[in-house]
Structures are given as C-alpha cells and as structure tokens.
C-alpha cells in the first residue's frame, strides 16, 4: 500500500470533505483565525489543531501551566517554602496518573486501569475488555472481511447485554456459577451442574453472551434452551455423580454456530483455569522447587492431596493465590504505564526471571492427621512453636554447685616453704666455732658470701656455687678449704638474720618481700640490671676480680642507709662529700667485702683526702654519740647496721612498703631529671623566621647524629669555644694520651722538636689557655665525682673533662718549659680516676726505660708522680686499698701483692679505653670524626700494646713525623720533670 502511494502524483489541493472535519476543529480554526487572537494573554486558551485545549502534560499542570500559563499565582509569585521530606516522609503526596488526565483520556484509559482479574471478575468487565483488546489487535493485523473498527456492540460484555436484555436472571445465574467455578473449585456441585448444562472446563459461561452477538435480540428460545439445559443437567446429576471434566472439551455445539468473524470472541470464551493450583507453599512467587526434579513434585502432590482440607484451611494460601496467578501473567520488572496498553510484550516475557538458578527442594512435608493439626492450632494460641508440644516431664533441672568449703584452718596468706627451709636450717644445727683461715682474703670472701647467702637464701649459694665451680677461691662453697668456717659464718649470719626477722613486727610482709629475687626487686625499685663485670669471665680469678664484681653489684643497688643517715648528714651541702662520708662510715663500722674506691674520692689530692678523712672521723664520732643518746632511733640504727653488716645491698628488699617507696623516690630524684644532649638541625627557614643564623649553614645533615658527644662536652666545658677551635682541641686531646707512651719510644727524636711545638702553640686556641690557667680545679673536680656516681653518661663526661685537664696540665708543663719557667711543683695534679690511671700505667714503664725510678718503688708511691711526699702518699692512698681490708698493709706489701695491685690498676685503664671506644662510636658519624677516629684507633692499638716493646710502635709511628716531634718534645719535658722530682 505504501509503495502504491509513492507513485501518486498530487496535483492541486485536495478538497477536504466536510464530514471529516468535526465541529471542534472548525471551532478551533475559527478561533485562531478570529478575534481570540487579540485577547490578553491570560485569557487566551491554547488549543491544539483538534480544537482541544492544550494539555501541558501530566506533571506540569494540565490545561494551563501554572497560573494562566505563567509561573505566578493570583497573589503573585511566591516560591514554595522548602520543607524537609526527612521529617514528613509519610506526608508526601502520592500522585496518581488520574490526577493529570482529562475526562476523555480517563474514559479512554478506563479499560487499561487495574481491574479485577478475570478470575474474580464477577460481572465480566475485565474479561470482556481484554477480549475486545485482543480482538482489536487481531483485527488490525490481518485483513478483515469487515473493515473498520470492530463495533463495540460485538464484544459488548455481558453487563451491557444485561442492561439491554430482559433475561438478567439468566446471565446472573451464569456469572455466579462462573464465580463459583473460579473461586471455589471445591464446590463440586456447581461444577457438576454446569457440566451437566453443557459447560466445559476452560470455557467461559459467557457463551450465551457471545450468542447474543449475532442477533441484537436474544431470542427467547435461547433462554429457554439454557433453562432446558439446566434442567437436563439436574437430571444427569442425579443419575451420574462423577464428573469427567478433567479434560476440557474445546468446542461445544454453541461454538459451532459461531461465525468466523468472531474468532477473537471465541478465544475470550476460553477462560484459563487459573486457580487450579492455588498457592499453598511458602516459596516465593513463581518459584518452582521441583523445576529440575519433577519426581519430587509427584511425591509432594500426593502428599498434599492427602491433607487437602488442611491446606485449604490455611488462610494465607487463599490470600496469596490470586496474587500469584496475576503476577505470573505480567513481566516482573516492568509495570504497565498508565497510558500503555497491556500488550503481548508485557506479558511474561521475563517469566524465566522467576526461575532461580539455584533450586533446592524444601520438602516441608506436613504431618497428616487432624489431631496434630488441632494441637498445632492450640499451640499457636498458647504461644508455642507449632508442631511442638509441651513436654509432660522435663529432664532439665537447674544445676547448683555449692561453694567450696573453706577449711577451718585456712589462712589467706601464702607461706613460702623456702623461708621455712632457711629458718629450719638455722635452727637445726650450729656448726662448731672454727678459727678463720689464715688467708685474709679468703676470710673476707667467706664472710661476705655467708652474709649474702643468709640474706638471700640458699638460692644465692647455689648460684654462686654454679658460677664459681672452677674458681679455687670459692672452694669453700663446695667443701674445700675454709668450708667449715664458711658454714659457721653462714650459721651466724642466718641466726642474726632470723633474729632480725623475729624482731621485726611486720614479719609476714617482710618474709614475702624478702624472698624475692634480686632481679625482681631491682625491677620494682627501678634499678638498672646487673652488669657483667669486665673480667668476670676471664680465667685469672683474683680477689680483686671478685671485689670488682662486688663493687659492680653494689653500684647497681641502691643505698638504703642513705635515708637512714638522713638524720646525720654533716655534709648535706656537698653531695659528693656526703657520699664519701657514707662510704667512710661503712668502711669504719662494717666488716665484709670492701670495694676499691671506685673513683669517688680518687680525684682528690692525697692531702685533701687525709684532711677529709679526719673530718669524717670527727663527724662519725659525733653521730655515734647522737645515736647512743637517742634511744628512740635505735631500731632504725639497728636496721641500718644490720643491712650494712650484710655487706652489699641485697638487704633493702625487706623494708616495709612505705620505706621502699621512699627509696624509690630517692632513686627517682637521683635519676631524674636526666639531661641528654643531641644534635638537632633546625630547618633553614625556621632559622630565618627566628632571625637566627643557621648553625649548620644549610649544610645537609651527613648523618642522623652528626656531632659527637665529645664535642658537645667540650663545648659545654668551655662554652665559648667555637666549632673550628673545638676540632683542634679534640685533636690535641687525642694526641696526648698516646704521647706518654711515645715518651718511651721516641726519645731520640726529641732534638728537632722545638719548632713543631711552637707551631702547635700557635694553633692552640686562647680559650684553652683560659681553661687551663683559670682557677677551675676543686669544685669542678668534685662535681665530676658526683657525676660519675650518677650515671654512665655523666661518667663519660667526667672522664672527658679529666682528659682535657690532663691535656691542660701536660701542655702547661711544656709551655712552662718553653717559657723557661719553673712549673710549680705543688700544682695540684689532675687526679681524677681516669687521670691517674695513665700515670700509673706509664710511670713504671718510664722508669723501666730510663732507669730513673727504681724498680722496687711501692706502687702507691707511683701514684704521686708529681712530687708529693711518698709517706703521705702511703697514708692517703689508704682509701684506695679497701680491697684488702682495714689494716694498712702497704708497708709490708709483698711483691706478689704489688703485682696484684698492678693488675688492679689495669681494669681501670681498660675501662677508660672502653669509654674512649664509646666516644668513638658516638662520634663515628661526625663530619670531622673520621680523621679523629683514625687517630684514636692508632692510639688504642698502641695503648693495648703498651706493655710490650716500644720498637714496633716506633716503626708504626715513624711516618707521622710531626706528631713524633711534638710528642718527643713533650716527652723530654716530662722526663726532665720526673728526674727533677725524684
């Protein structure tokens, strides 16, 4: 048809036929062309070409958008105030399509609105409508014999015919039957009736309606016919009770009469029996659990047919049934728009969407039997779970456990068996009094160990036994020499100990605390862990060795007697002195192990020491008097004495809590505040903003910690030393310790030294001179002493200070030499701990090399190599000799003991070396540290090989002639000085 049209050639304007233009259109045309155009805007009506008012759209206001097609309102334009939908969610107005449709559209739409589905379509509206639609469609698709739209009358539903015709009763009866059929398939009687009347399953009862299609008048015959049929059916019903309607018969005699043109109508007659299978399960809509397992379906069906009546009684099955049937017809995701027709496309094209991929059979087989059913309902009423019945007797009983019975003799405190052990041990046997062994050292040793063991329990003995198995000195532990004495001493100490315990009122607490190990106690008190002594593992086990261990131990532990002595602190203002005083007191009143004076007092001159000692004696006497006078303080004093008698401070664990905490406080006060210094690089911009010159001049940091601690210490020592000078100083420093060794070596090179020395002098900074010549000495020395006790960091600081002083003194000598001045002999020599050790170390060597000092010079005399009277040296070095006991054994010191003493010194030097190595480590990253390090390494190597020959070192150092010169010159001065003083 289209192609035909293309061939037409139109000439002229086609004349519109009058009848095609309806009146509305004419009116519209007239209006647009006429006077309406001149009307003001708000009076004009927009109309389409059909003459209808323009419909602006469902959502924009119907016929007139806004107010006369403006955005205003009668009152003017007022914007709608915003109201939050958050709070008024429920009040959101629901718009329906109908709100936006006009009458004709509504009328048009009517059929497409949601209507009663045909199953429940009592009066057949929807079915008829559907039928009409389908007919229309079919008619459109194929060329029909009768052109034009199908007259409505043809497919007029039964209602119309009801209106039209008189036999309403008939139609109604049929529709009611239909209803029955659809809704209650169980109403078998009705079905039977209808079947007898000629109705077949699947067929509409409206066939009478369709009959009415043919003639607009329903003939009374038909009516009669129907009635007759009914009567026949009744008769048949009486005769045969079983219907055979399982298979619907498609065509009845009525259908045969139908004309071909009403095919569509016929299709509408065949109503699908939708409610054949009402939804009885709990699956989702459209879900078929038996999709892939049809065999189960049979089982289920047979099952469900058994208890059909129960199923029917279920309320939800009948409720959900129609929904299921309805939604099965329509595609799930696509609602039918208000303006759309219900098309084929809309029907079930996504039906597969219902079929879920995973199918699993939920075979909820329902129990048969009405009794159970009744029970179930009863249970539901009572609030029980369905299909469960209340047990008549319950096996569950609340189990109760009685609280454990506390034995009547239970004491809520733990008794420590170990303590009992020791107590029993002490009370059991008392070993016979044994004379102490001749060896004084051994005696001291034994006493100390015994005291320790008494304090700390058997465990300590075991440990020390274990530790010193190979050590002949500790033979007494294993039953060797001096064991008897040890046993006696141990018993004594234990006796004393238990006395103390008994005497103490808070014995219980004490005991529990007392059994703690040293570590745990130390932990509680915040002590640093015990350091292994340097020579601990070495094979050469001398008394001094163990003494070192002891001293190390005592260093790690707190001094409980400190706060006990608080009452008697004659040197409060001078903590270092006070400390020495305490040490002195301890030495005076307590036996036991003695430590070498670990540098506390060694940085004093001998004379000063002697003076101090006298002071101490006086003070101690005064205290003693006060003690005896003050009886109330007895207990504390006793305790103090007791703790002191026990030797190293393993004792304070037994102190009651308050005391412990006070000790802790003392510690914390002592430890804190702790000052550390690091390098820190301010950002250049920060310096700029602070208006400060960048101390690093924007140099990138070479390493995280660039400046060594040594440098910092030097800067703090002499605060005004600038950086470059600093380097020189430290370099100088590094040369000096090795110098004294060089003395031995490079004597012969001493001649050409003077020039080099002068050069050196030029290099020396003024500040160093100041530092040397200014009156520093005493208080600073003491400070250093204090620092040493405080922490290792301070110790190193002090050591470095001592080193610098050493440098200074040495330099002073050489300077004096150069200036031709006599160095005053009574210049206080730098006698810090580290300061003395080099001289101790070197002087004998010197003497050996030069022969200036006799070999058999007592070692104590070698301490005062700067011209102190030797006798005084003897006296004053007494504090140094604590190791060997109270008595002054210097005088009758045997060569062997002297040797021992030499050995005694050595750890010191090693100590120092170690410290220097620490500096090395700390400064390893510094910019200038590398060269320095090299120096040091040389020095160390040298000092380690100090005792053996000079030749090798000579070779090693020959290349560095400048250093040699300097050293040799200095050496010369030194030698001269020595010879002068000796």
């Amino acid at each position: 048809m289209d192609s035909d049209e293309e061939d037409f050639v139109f000439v002229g304007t086609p004349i519109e036929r009058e009848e095609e233009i309806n009146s509305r259109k004419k009116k519209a045309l007239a209006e647009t062309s006429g006077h309406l155009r001149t009307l003001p805007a708000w009076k004009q009506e927009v109309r389409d070409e059909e003459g209808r008012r323009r419909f602006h759209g469902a959502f924009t206001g119907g016929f007139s958008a806004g107010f006369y097609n403006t955005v205003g309102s009668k009152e003017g334009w007022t914007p709608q105030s915003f109201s939050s939908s958050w709070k008024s969610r429920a009040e959101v107005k629901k718009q329906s399509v109908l709100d936006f449709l006009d009458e004709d559209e509504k009328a048009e739409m009517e059929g497409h609105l949601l209507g009663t589905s045909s199953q429940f379509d009592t009066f057949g509206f929807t079915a008829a409508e559907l039928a009409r639609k389908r007919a229309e469609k079919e008619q459109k698709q194929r060329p029909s014999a009768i052109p034009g739209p199908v007259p409505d009358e043809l497919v007029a539903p039964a209602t119309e015919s009801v209106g039209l015709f008189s036999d309403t009763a008939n139609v109604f009866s049929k529709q009611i039957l239909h209803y029955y059929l659809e809704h209650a398939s169980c109403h078998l009687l009705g079905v039977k009736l209808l079947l007898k009347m000629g109705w077949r399953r699947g067929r509409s009862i409206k066939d009478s309606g369709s009959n009415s299609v043919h003639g607009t008048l329903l003939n009374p015959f038909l009516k009669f016919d129907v009635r007759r049929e009914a009567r026949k059916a009744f008769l048949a019903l009486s005769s045969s009770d079983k219907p055979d309607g399982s298979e619907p018969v498609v065509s009845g005699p009525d259908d045969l009469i139908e004309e071909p043109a009403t095919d569509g109508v016929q299709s509408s007659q065949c109503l699908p029996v939708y409610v054949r299978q009402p939804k009885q399960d709990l699956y989702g809509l459209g879900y078929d659990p038996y999709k892939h397992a049809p065999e189960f379906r049979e089982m289920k069906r047979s099952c469900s047919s058994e208890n059909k009546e129960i199923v029917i009684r279920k309320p939800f099955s009948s409720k959900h049934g129609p929904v299921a049937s309805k939604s099965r017809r329509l595609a799930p995701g696509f609602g039918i728009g208000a303006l759309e027709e219900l098309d084929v496309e809309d029907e079930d094209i996504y039906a597969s969407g219902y079929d879920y991929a995973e199918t699993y059979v939920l075979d909820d087989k329902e129990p048969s039997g009405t009794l159970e059913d009744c029970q179930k309902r009863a249970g539901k009423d009572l609030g029980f779970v369905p299909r469960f019945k209340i047990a008549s007797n319950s096996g569950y009983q609340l189990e109760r456990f009685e609280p454990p019975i506390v034995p009547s003799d239970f004491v809520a405190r733990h008794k420590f068996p170990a303590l009992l052990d020791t107590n029993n041990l002490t009370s059991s046997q008392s070993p016979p009094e044994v004379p102490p062994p001749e060896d004084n050292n051994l005696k001291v040793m034994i006493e100390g160990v015994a005291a320790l063991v008494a304090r700390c329990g058997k465990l300590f003995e075991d440990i020390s036994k274990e530790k010193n198995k190979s050590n002949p000195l500790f033979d007494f532990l294993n039953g060797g020499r001096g064991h008897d004495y040890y046993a006696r001493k141990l018993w004594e100490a234990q006796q004393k100990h238990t006395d103390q315990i008994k005497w103490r009122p808070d014995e219980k607490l004490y005991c529990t605390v007392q059994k703690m190990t040293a570590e745990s106690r130390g932990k509680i008190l915040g002590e640093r862990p015990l350091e292994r002594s340097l020579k601990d593992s070495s094979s050469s086990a001398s008394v001094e060795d163990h003494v070192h261990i002891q001293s190390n131990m005592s260093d790690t532990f707190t001094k409980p007697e400190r706060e006990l002595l608080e009452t008697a602190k004659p040197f409060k203002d001078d903590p270092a002195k006070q400390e020495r005083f305490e040490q002195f007191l301890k030495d005076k009143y307590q036996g036991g192990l003695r430590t070498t004076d670990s540098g506390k007092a060694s940085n004093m001159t001998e004379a000063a020491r002697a003076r101090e000692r006298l002071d101490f004696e006086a003070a101690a006497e005064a205290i003693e008097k006060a003690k005896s006078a003050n009886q109330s303080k007895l207990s504390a004093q006793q305790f103090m004495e007791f703790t002191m008698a026990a030797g190293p401070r393993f004792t304070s664990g037994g102190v009651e809590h308050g005391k412990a905490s006070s000790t802790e406080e003392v510690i914390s006060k002592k430890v804190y505040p702790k000052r550390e210094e690091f390098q820190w690089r301010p950002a250049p911009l920060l310096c700029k903003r602070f208006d400060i010159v960048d101390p690093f001049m924007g140099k990138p940091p070479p390493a995280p910690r660039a400046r060594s601690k040594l440098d910092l210490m030097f800067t703090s020592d002499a605060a005004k030393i600038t950086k470059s000078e600093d380097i020189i100083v430290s370099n100088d420093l590094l040369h000096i310790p090795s110098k004294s060794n060089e003395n031995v070596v490079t004597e012969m090179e001493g001649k050409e030294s003077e020039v080099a020395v002068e050069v050196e002098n030029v290099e020396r900074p003024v500040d160093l001179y100041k530092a040397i010549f200014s009156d520093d000495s005493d208080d600073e020395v003491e400070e250093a002493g204090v620092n040493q006790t405080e922490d290792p960091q301070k110790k190193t600081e002090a050591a470095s200070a001592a080193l610098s002083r050493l440098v200074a003194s040495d330099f002073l000598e050489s300077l004096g030499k150069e200036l031709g001045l006599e160095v005053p002999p009574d210049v206080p020599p730098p006698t810090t701990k580290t300061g003395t050790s080099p001289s101790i170390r070197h002087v004998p060597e010197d003497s050996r090399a030069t022969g200036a000092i006799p070999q058999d010079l007592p070692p104590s005399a070698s301490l005062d190599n700067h011209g102190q009277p030797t006798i005084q040296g003897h006296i004053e070095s007494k504090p140094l000799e604590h190791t060997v006991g109270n008595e002054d054994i210097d005088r009758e010191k045997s060569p062997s003991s002297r040797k021992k003493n030499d050995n005694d010194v050595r750890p010191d030097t090693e100590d120092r070396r170690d410290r220097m190595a620490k500096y090395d480590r700390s400064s390893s990253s510094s910019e200038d540290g590398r060269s320095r390090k090299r120096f040091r390494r040389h020095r160390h190597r040298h000092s380690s090989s100090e005792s053996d020959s000079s030749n090798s070192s000579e070779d090693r150092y020959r290349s560095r002639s400048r250093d040699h010169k300097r050293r040799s010159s200095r050496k010369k001065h030194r030698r001269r000085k020595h010879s002068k003083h000796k």
Partner: protein
Amino acid sequence: MSGEELPTKEANVLRGHGGAVLAARFNSDGNYCLSCGKDRTVRLWNPHRGIHIKTYKSHGREVRDVHVTQDNSKLISCGGDRQIFYWDVSTGRVIRKFRGHDSEVGSARKLVCFVLVKVNAVKFNEYASVVVSAGYDRSVRAWDCRSQSTEPIQIIDTFADSVMSVCLTKSEIIAGSVDGTVRTFDIRMGREISDNLGQPVNCISLSNDSNCILAGCLDSTLRLLDRCTGELLQEYEGHICKSYKLDCCLTNTDAHVTGGSEDGYIFFWDLVDATVVSRFRAHASVVTSVSYHPKDNCMITASVDGSIRVWKT
C-alpha cells in the same frame, strides 16, 4: 612574701562558654584575655571589665589552646580537629588553616594513620612569623605564617609520646611531652637538650627571666628546672593533677608558683621554699588553666565548669 599580695579576690567571672574551658590566656600586655573550650569557640574578653568582646567560631571540635601575637593582631588556635587556625583578631576571619598534625609522620604505625590527631598546644614566636604546635602525634611542628604554605617548616618528632605543651623563647623551642621529657631545641646552637623528668609532663611554662622551666607533671608535682644545667631546683606538691591537663605558671615577679588542681583549688607555692603559701577553692570543678598577668597581680583561671574567673589582690 606574704599571701596578701597574691590575687585571691575574685574580680570578675567571665561566663559564656558552653562547656569546659580548656585554656585561658592573657595577651602580651595583659589587657585582654583569650579563652577556648569544648564549645568549639575561641573567645576574647576584657577580664578587667568582665566583658565578652568577640567569639571566634570555626573549629570543628574542641579548642585546646590559643595564643595571640605581641601586636594583638593575629590569633592562633588549635584543638581536636587536627587543624591549626590562624585568625585575624579584628575581623574574626580565619586567615589560614595549617594542615595540622595528621599522623603521616606517625604512619610507621599504620593504625594511627586515621586517628584524628589532636593538637595540644600552639605558640607564636616573638615575631609572629612562626607558629609552633605540639600534637598528639608525638611531634612538634613549626608553621610559617609569612608564606602561603600550609605545610610545616619543620617537624620535630623525637618525642616518644604525645607532646602536651610548648614554649618559645627567642631562639629555642621548649616542649614537654608525656614521655616525661622536656626538650629544648636550640635553634642557635643546633642542638636538642632533653631533660627527662621521669613523669609525664603536662604543661611547661617559662619563668619570666627565662632561666627556669616549670613543668607540671602528672604525678601531682610541679618541677622547677634550671634550664642551663638541667638541675631540678624544686618540687611543688599538694595539688592534684593525675588525669587532666592542668596549667601552671609563675607569677609576674617569679616569686610564686601557681597552678590549678583537679578539685577546683588554686595553689600558690613559694618559689624557693616550695611551701604552699595560699590555696583556695576557685572553681566547682577541675581548674584547667591559669594565666598570670604579665605586670600586675592579676590572674585568670579557667575551669571545666565553663567559667573563667579573674582574680586580683
């Protein structure tokens, strides 16, 4: 010195904060004071007349510290919302927000990464060119006020725990941390001095002669340190400071040490003897902040109860 000269009479009560006041500070000449608190505002007051002048709102969380420049033109404030706000005093606008302490530095521990880092303290330097802030992220950061950069000039992250308080001198940054250290960063010398007090440091304040640091520790003790030697000069005890960040300071003459207590008391100690010269109940609740007038005998205290009180002799 007798207690008569101490500001023990209440002159004014400044009310307005809707919640705990976390800090109250005099400005440099002592005519005004600033306060900040949990209500996320910074407020400017005239404490002598008891007038509320201005409120600065922009913070998203509590404001923990505020500081004003010497010329009273700019404010800096910080708080729980990680950012540092740089205000114009007169207009009340935020000039800049420094990006603040986020835990990028602390990202070695990935867990900390997303924790909102609190900034505990801020201070201007003398020229108001740099702001130094101390934060929960264990760092002290310096921010440039002159450039437009919102990145820190420098991050100092040698602390082992949250940094609670910061002080500035002409050439040093001093900060106290919960790790128990008071660290002095000497820009001139390029070194860091760490004084370990062994107790968490809550607040540090400089003496007026800048020779001493007063450190408020969480063991209910104020400690006075000599800055040169690091020596512990004195300890002041009697108050309660165990769980809150309480301020402490020295009086204008450096004769007394003052600080708040968690029971609402204010304490005055003699600087030398460490005896409690005066103590009185000032607030109903924890006294979070004290600030002493730079010249007069006047003090302001702020408390959790939301009031700021002005004390005069």
